[in-house]
């Protein structure tokens, strides 16, 4: 069975927010839109975003890591938001594992957002319905789009290709390989939600050096530090010492 998901590589994410606003612009005019913004030009602007980047620091100076952490609905295999929904608006698609909200059924009771341990759901402040990442379900099956573009908007936008998209149940997919090869992990596995989205951790490339690499036969100083020879014609003791 297919389970579509995002795999996000924290090793290359620079926190540029391209995924945040490309998501916003696609979805506000898409089948999940419009996404409302309250006070867009006033105090405390507050709108619905399906995807946000959280930035936090780990460790004490100077051993500090600055982590940019993009977060959206994780499309859990066992999503706690679905059973709590009193109207059946919150559902998980059998065909591809995407968790969606049917706005026509949603009454905005927020049970699902309380159930979600990841804080991935946001009530649209205008429509008063629960909204969240759809994995751009209105892109990924759209025959009008070139095949290479049938991906979520955030994946298309990401300048560092930190966002991979695919079926984590297919062991040969790009996402499955990335999880296997780069120690991909799921968030808070102890909740038993089996998030479909995974994260790839920071990986450090060290450089090993040996002291003897600084000692080389071809050191240019062997040439440059050599002193010039005086011309043979310069005066020398040879000219005066006859015995």
């Amino acid at each position, binding site marked *: 069975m297919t389970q579509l998901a995002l795999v996000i590589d924290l090793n290359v994410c*620079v926190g*540029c927010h391209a995924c945040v606003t490309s998501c916003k612009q696609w979805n506000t005019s898409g089948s999940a839109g419009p996404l409302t913004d309250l006070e867009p030009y006033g105090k405390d602007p507050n709108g619905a975003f399906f995807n946000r980047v959280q930035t936090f620091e780990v460790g004490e100076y100077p051993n500090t890591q600055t982590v940019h952490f993009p977060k959206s609905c994780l499309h859990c295999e066992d999503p706690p938001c679905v059973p709590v929904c009193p109207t059946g608006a919150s*559902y998980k698609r059998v065909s591809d594992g995407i968790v969606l909200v049917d706005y026509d059924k949603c009454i905005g009771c927020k049970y699902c957002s309380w159930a979600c341990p990841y804080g991935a759901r946001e009530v649209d402040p205008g429509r008063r319905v629960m909204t969240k990442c759809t994995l751009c379900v209105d892109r990924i099956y759209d025959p009008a789009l070139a095949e290479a573009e049938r991906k979520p908007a955030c994946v298309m936008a990401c300048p560092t290709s930190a966002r991979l998209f695919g079926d984590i149940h297919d062991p040969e997919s790009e996402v499955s390989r990335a999880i296997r090869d780069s120690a991909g992990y799921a968030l808070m596995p102890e909740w038993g939600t089996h998030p479909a989205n995974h994260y790839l951790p920071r990986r450090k490339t060290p450089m090993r050096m040996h002291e003897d690499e600084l000692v080389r036969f071809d050191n240019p100083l062997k040439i440059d530090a050599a002193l010039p020879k005086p011309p043979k014609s310069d005066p020398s003791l040879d000219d005066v010492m006859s015995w």
Partner: protein
Amino acid sequence: MSPSVVHDPLVPPLPGAETAIRTTTCYMCACRCGIRVHLRDGEVRFIDGNPEHPLNKGVICAKGSSGIMKQYSPARLTKPLRRKPGSERGAGEFVEIEWDEAFALLEERLAHIRATDPRRFALFTGRDQMQALTGLFARQFGTPNYAAHGGFCSVNMAAGMIYTLGGSFWEFGGPDLERAKLFVMLGTAEDHHSNPLKIAIAQFKRDGGRFISINPIRTGYSAIADEWLPIRPGTDGALLLALIHELIALGLYDREFLVRYTNSGQLVNINAADDEFGMFVRTEVPKEEGCFDPQDKLWWDRTSNRPVVTHSEGADPYLLGEFALSDGTRVKPAFQLLKERVADYTPEWAAGITGIAAEAIRRLAHEMGITARDQKIELPIAWTDIWGNEHDTVTGNPVAFHAMRGLAAHSNGFHTIRALAILMTLLGTIDRPGGFRHKAPFPRPIPPCAKTPNTPLAVKPNHPLDGLALGWPAEPDDLFVDDDGAPVRIDRAFSWEYPLAVHGMMHNVITNAWRGDPYPIDTLLIFMANMAWNSTMNVVEVRRMLNDRHTEGEQRGEYKIPFLVVCDAFQSETTAFADLVLPDTTYLERHDVMSMLDRPISEFEGPVDSVRIPIVPPTGQCKPFQEVLIELAGRLRLPAFVRPDGTRRFCDYPDFVINYETDPGSGIGFLSGWRGKGGEKFMRGEPNPRQWEMYARNNCVYQYKLPPSYQYMRNWNKGYLEWSQRNRIQRYAEPILVHVYSEVLQKFRAAAQGKGSSRKPPEHLKARLATYFDPLPFYYEPLEVQRTDLEKYPLCAVTQRPMAMYHSWDSQNAWLRQIHAHNHLHVNPKVARAAGIDDGGWMWVESQWGRVRCLCRYSEAVEPGTVWTWNAIGKAPGAWRLTPDANEAERGFLLNPLISEELPGETGDAPISNSDPVTGQAAWYDVRVRIYPAATDEARVTAPQYAVVPPAPGTVVDPPRRLAFFAGRKRR
């Protein structure tokens, strides 16, 4: 799981809507990616990266993805505005006028200035990628007072590298991360070309490259570095010189590269008494003189042990030692002088200055040296050098660097960047795979050929300026000064004070004009620059200057800067001060060119230029600034824009772009692609009436790919140099040797020391010139630091822009402002706690020039000697059509009130610009501050607070309090 779905997510959201996709070029920042604009019923529905575009290859950033909110911003100016008669400048009270009236007003005023004293018109632009036209307009008008924002941005980077390598980071070159193994980034948080750099860094890391970031702050790119070396701001020069010291001491330099491709082996006269002291010794006058380095210098040949002309067949120079010519002249190779220069710049010395441990500096030098030496790349590409030697391969030493404003925006930045360029050269990484690579039209001769006039006689009423307003001085005689050595330009660029101010000094224009020193002006035209806000130092005082009047004399009661014209697409803080506001279009509403005559978007593989074409009609009556200039040029009958009989040559800007040639019949124009009658020519060819169409059909971009043998070693590559000569990219096909030792700088020093035949500086500037025009890089404390009580103000304060707003012109953007609506001062927790400031608490940050109240945020990602904030988040209340109580106004702040545009002069009399003494680069990051908590009874808003900007006519008076953007719905 629910099988029955009422709201089908796959149904088209607006059935039956008419959709279209158009390509153009982004301008949400200076990066200029290719974009596709998706329209639904004529409204912008989606903007994504164009996968067919060589720059961004389909990706897009947060800003580019928010273009819709720029297009439909309530702050859009839609009508020309004139300051309400009787109202105070800065009060923001305007009346709407028609374009005819605006043009008539400008025509009358400018025609009078042009006929009397063209200097009294100054044109300064915030964005510098339109200089081909703005520069032409200023020159044709006849004013020397023209520049773009480079002087207050990163001119040290351009000048420091171009005066050393003949090319620079920026649009003109960059790190080849595809082949690099080690990447060292200094003083950069985010940079343009921003998306290409992000693409490249990510790929580099995936391929196992090692990334080291040297920066006081760990954000942005530094976050994903394998190592972060925190450094004190303004001390990078010390680090780089210590790295050079270590590389030379251990022999970790690329000797062959230095010998063949740099001036390291050239002999310098070291007879202190000689007029020629510090100059290269020469054989004879070259046959042809021109804008290039003639090959008439000497090496001391190791084989024959005598001086020979450089690059003589079979010769190999000494790089070290001291020699005597037959006439007794003592000489040393340039490299010997470099070695002597860095002798005392040990890692231990640098550790005390930079805060980086000596051991870490050594290790960094070793990593660079060993990687460059032992991980060599050999590409199977045959090429011929300019001396005729054939090479079977192109070699690369895969250590790449990138640096930007963190190095540049200090008053010691020029020498710091010279040191960086020399470090890159020692490692043998110039225009080689895995190192630094040029982008056309660079490399250029050192310095490039363009020159300003060198006399005030070049400014003549009703006559174009006799030379360019901006250029590249090669010697003191190139300075734009009068017989007494006084500046001709209002910003004092190209004077003895700031001789290599190659991008002008926009940051001093308002102060100088207000003071009338060197002279008063009449009309200041500002395009797309927020000079009453974040683009100006000393913002509180500068706003006062804009509003200041004469209190005595004939001009009593008149404004000191009599007429201020601002052209912008938005109601900014600066438009409030304008006497005349010209509403510009957005990037989606106009034609534009990224011209080869300006700053194109070339790739390593060859020249690339591109265009914008209008996707949607202009909003209200807004008009592209280019059209304004073409119209004005026609009305003023500027020679390049009219025929001899006075009729207009060009009906509008698109017509101008197609038909303008640098000289009649030159075949060189604004766009390099699809020239010639049928579009069959590149770079040079007759105007093609269908050129726009051809760009539009081809993703709005023209890319020329050089053959591989021309893609590397271009400073010395015969094939490339002759190709660029044939295509008129440069006049000469001469080698461009790296200036490890800068004779250009020495010429200015010599003049200050009374040597040589060039003109000499005024007495009071001699010591300054002799100090800072050192032919070899050196480290000195930034000028402001030298004038600061460091006991009282111990901390550095710097700013950077967040990626979501980098280089962007609209942080009022409804989506982007939800990412950053206000800013904090980031302080290391140990430092903040010691000062008694809470995380999230209100605090004061104070310099010797002013103080600002703001919110504190603890950060472990900043070195303890530095505090920092995001720049340009803070807004004046009401500006950009945000409500006066918006977070930007109440909790956002600028550091600009802490930064002075001037410093006390060296001798205590006239003030000097707070700038690099070589280039005039604004020294934004030199300020020193102290911090302390705000009292509990103080207002919970940032200070200073600024006057509320009322809505300008033509903007949306009541911006929506609720937005639910859904493209196409409005039109139904």
